[in-house]
């Protein structure tokens, strides 16, 4: 059987991490191809719901990344984001969602090598965790069966 290739969605900010990921490429650093990058103006613009939406649509792991504290293009966006993640992470952990599948990072525009490392580590962690079957089951349960009355 082929090895499990995790699907990773990365939510990154335009100014730091996206530029950092760009640098990874232009520096010709190789990294795992499992990641799909979604670019946001700022980490402060990443709605927490999007993380759940990624899982619901088949992601096995998630990377969230933006500018280091004090480096935000919009001055405070990442500070707001940090608070939100602190609360949200605790809440979904409490609700039984596996927070080991979400990796939060600060990656600046100059850290091309670090981006590769973040992706590689996340891919390896998630690979060990295996596909996120629990969540997929819940997301697809509505289509699976013709009749779900009274379960």
């Amino acid at each position, binding site marked *: 059987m082929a090895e499990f290739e995790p699907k990773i969605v990365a939510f990154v900010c335009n100014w730091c991490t996206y530029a950092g990921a760009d640098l990874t490429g232009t520096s010709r650093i190789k990294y795992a191809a499992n990641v799909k990058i979604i670019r946001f103006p700022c980490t402060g613009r990443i709605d*927490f*719901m999007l993380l*759940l939406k990624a899982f*619901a649509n088949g992601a096995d792991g998630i990377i969230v990344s933006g500018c280091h*504290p*004090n480096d935000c293009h919009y001055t*405070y966006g990442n*500070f*707001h984001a*940090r*608070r*939100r*993640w*602190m*609360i*949200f*992470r*605790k*809440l*979904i*952990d*409490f*609700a*039984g*969602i*596996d927070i080991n599948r979400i*990796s*939060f*990072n*600060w990656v600046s525009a100059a850290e091309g090598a670090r981006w590769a490392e*973040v992706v590689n580590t996340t891919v390896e962690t998630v690979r060990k965790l295996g596909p996120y079957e*629990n969540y997929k089951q*819940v*997301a697809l*349960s*509505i289509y699976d069966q013709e009749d779900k009355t009274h*379960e």
Partner: protein
Amino acid sequence: MNELIAKAKYLLSSKTVDVVIGYGKGSGKYARAEFIRKLDDADKMIYNETCIQNLATYVQKHEVKHLGKIAIVANNYTLRSLLVLASEFQFTEGQVLALYITPENKIVEMPDFKSIEDHLATVDTGLKPDEKEIVDRIEKMTVAERWDFWQKEFAKCFKCFACRSSCPLCYCTKCMTESNQPQWIPVAASDLGNMEWHIMRAMHLAGRCVNCGDCARACPMDIPLNLLTYNLIEGIEKDFGAKAGMKATDISTLSTFKPDDKENFIK
């Protein structure tokens, strides 16, 4: 509760307020809300251990707003809800007169925010030991156990939105669950739709919830929704030292930040 009845009659006859929102005898376990506008109706008012509903819910209701100036029978949760609403500019000082009832059954009029704030500063508004205990119990479970626990609970949900309607702080005229371009949360009361709805509802109350517990009491299927908000309240107090509804000028936890917020998971 003669003192309360007399107070209501005085407030109405002196035209200090147009309606007194209080409790009357209910047909079940709990007392029901009564909207006293006529002197005679004031005799319906009661106050005892069945008077649990957070009446601050009605401050935002269209029909109630239109009755005029409001006096509202309040416990500590109601007072805190009022301050959160005030901090979100949902009403202005002087529009609502709170009638706080002390554990000794004394009535204290709280016409302005300062009197409410001063009072709340003197009471214990933290999580109660039994509330802490149940949060701890769930936190001690493994992730898989917690997942199963909540999936079983969420499966019962049929999206009647009693949790939302009963909450004094859920006052949006168009809830995020109703925004449909794109459809944010699935409309169906499916496994996914229910989970997303309850997590999002809790998140939208983060830093705002005053822990009155009406969401869980309102749920016809007895889903312990207040556990989610207990967890939030506990975390927010620990991480940010914040507590909702203590000051009318407070900014909710998620609307602000400190440069030195401490976490240990962002690499």
